[in-house]
């Protein structure tokens, strides 16, 4: 008998059987549904996280280093309190460092605060105010909308009241006008807008990089915060030289901070790789937990399928006898019941996708999540495989039935 014909017939019988026992079939697939929903959401979440990371990391810049008093990831409260006693990084430190290092592309001090920004009657609250130098356009890899510019070295050194605004701030305050040349008020002090930043989007899905205003660091120190703790942004300019640059920066920083040879560093050099590391750990944890839940529910689901298939085989003993009497071979019967088990599971898989789909739509608000086609394929494959594995024993029993006994069965 033609194998394709056999498959087609098997599928047909399976669908008829499932239709005849709708409720039973669906209840049976509950474990499969939970398993597949988990595997899909997990896949989507990991995918989404990685994608969010990729987008954000691009903004950090592969060849950008961030020097600050503490590392980005402080593990314990004890560490944190200890690190708090390190001296702050001052603007003088930054200036000296800039003189000490020669092989990097640019060095910029970064300080942040929050403030309201106003233009006439319109205002933007909780805008991130960044104090920096003209170098930040290089270190931050910032793009400026045409018609504007970043502030110059003279404006920066002279602490001129100028600013570059993020695209969100621009659309908020100037829905129709061109902001360049206008005067906005930050904390009631006037600043002239010299440029608008190109939109950068969200960082790690958490806060907008477009809701910021950059002003010369001297303005910041005079009017916002007298002795802040600086972060230093360094653009190396060449990924291949990243490690070399780190060494140079470390030596220079130690000199700037006047550390004795035996002293430990009182600063940290951060880079995107640290976030990548973190993310890998988070992804792996999600994957491990997800795989565990998936495995467990697929196992439980598989047992359920096996059970219901045994019931199905027993119920249809006479039918099996009849089919054998009419010429069905062992393989034919085996395939028929395997297909039935797989079909029940695939129905479960489809139900699971129908559940997972709207959930990913919700997830989309937090991360660039997407129910990808390969993931759908994997989900259905996993379901079918569960069916085939757990259906094998019952199908084998059916295939080996003696037709005389099967036909006599009441």
């Amino acid at each position, binding site marked *: 008998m033609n194998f394709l014909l056999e498959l087609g017939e098997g599928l047909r019988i399976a669908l008829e059987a499932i239709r005849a026992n709708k409720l039973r079939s669906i209840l049976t697939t509950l474990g499969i549904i939970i398993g597949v929903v988990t595997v899909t959401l997990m896949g989507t979440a990991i995918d989404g996280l990685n994608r969010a990371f990729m987008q954000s990391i691009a903004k950090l810049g592969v060849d950008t280093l961030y020097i600050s008093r503490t590392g980005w990831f402080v593990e314990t409260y004890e560490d944190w309190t200890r690190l708090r006693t390190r001296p702050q990084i001052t603007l003088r430190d930054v200036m000296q460092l800039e003189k000490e290092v020669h092989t990097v592309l640019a060095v910029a001090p970064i300080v942040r605060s929050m403030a309201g920004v106003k233009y006439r009657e319109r205002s933007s609250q909780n805008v991130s105010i960044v104090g920096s130098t003209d170098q930040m356009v290089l270190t931050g890899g910032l793009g400026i909308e045409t018609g504007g510019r970043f502030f110059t070295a003279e404006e920066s050194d002279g602490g001129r009241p100028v600013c570059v605004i993020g695209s969100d701030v621009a659309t908020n305050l100037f829905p129709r006008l061109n902001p360049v040349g206008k005067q906005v008020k930050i904390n009631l002090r006037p600043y002239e807008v010299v440029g608008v930043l190109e939109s950068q989007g969200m960082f790690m899905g958490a806060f907008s990089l477009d809701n910021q205003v950059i002003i010369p660091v001297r303005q910041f120190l005079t009017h916002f915060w007298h002795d802040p703790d600086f972060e230093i942004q360094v653009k190396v300019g060449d990924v291949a030289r990243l490690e070399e640059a780190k060494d140079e920066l470390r030596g220079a920083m130690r000199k700037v901070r006047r550390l004795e040879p035996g002293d430990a560093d009182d600063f940290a050099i951060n880079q995107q790789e640290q976030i990548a590391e973190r993310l890998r750990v988070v992804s792996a944890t999600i994957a491990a937990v997800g795989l565990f839940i998936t495995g467990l529910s697929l196992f439980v689901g598989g047992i359920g399928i096996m059970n219901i298939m045994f019931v199905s085989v027993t119920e249809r003993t006479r039918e099996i006898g009849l*089919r*054998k*009497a*009419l*010429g069905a*071979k062992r393989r034919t019967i085996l395939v028929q019941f395997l297909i039935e088990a797989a079909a029940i599971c695939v129905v479960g898989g489809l139900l699971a996708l129908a559940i997972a789909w709207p959930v990913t739509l919700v997830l989309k608000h937090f991360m660039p999540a997407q129910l990808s086609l390969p993931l759908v394929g994997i989900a259905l494959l996993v379901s079918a495989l569960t069916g085939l594995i757990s259906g094998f024993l019952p199908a084998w029993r059916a295939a080996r039935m003696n037709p005389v006994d099967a*036909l006599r069965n009441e």
Partner: protein
Amino acid sequence: MSLICLTNIARRYVMGAETIHALRDVSVSIERGEYVAIMGPSGSGKSTLMNLLGCLDTPTEGTYELNGENVSDMDDNQLADIRNREIGFVFQTFNLLPRANALRNVELPLIYSGMRLDERRERAREALQQVGLGDRVTHKPNELSGGQRQRVAIARALVTRPSIILADEPTGNLDSRTGEEIMQLFARLSEAGNTILLVTHEESIAAHARRVVRLLDGRVAADEAKGGDRSPEA
């Protein structure tokens, strides 16, 4: 050469310490085109003999040649093939698939022989017409009367154009009038050249056949031809 040639067939069932001799030393041959009734009291081995003839079971002893092929020691898959090609079964309880309509039920054996869909449909329709159910093609078993169900089953037996039709008490679940109709159908099929073997314990049913093989306690007790136009081998 006979269509069916049973030589010294024995079939024993071992039940623990006890051995049941369902058939002992049965030798029967049946020619193409014969219409044979197998009779005997309950437990005499009629169904056992039918199962052997239908290749659903294999003998403990003896040889069975069907169409010149020795089927006594074929394996499962070969027997399935033989059943599909050579044998049409009609059961007492009809044994139709409840969820499939008449056409689907009738085409089932053709699916197992790997026939193409359109050809299959054509043949199934033809068979249903032959049993007078040309207008009940899309009916499901529960939409048919007992007699009609048995006709569908007979159509299913005919559809592969088998060498022999085996019917174990085909009227056992029908009232006498419907049973008589079914017997008339068998008579017509026999006249059309089909080889038919049926098991019954009613003389009135056996009267339709032209030869009666009587079993008693697993042995052939009598083998009598009627009408004298055919001679049985004793």
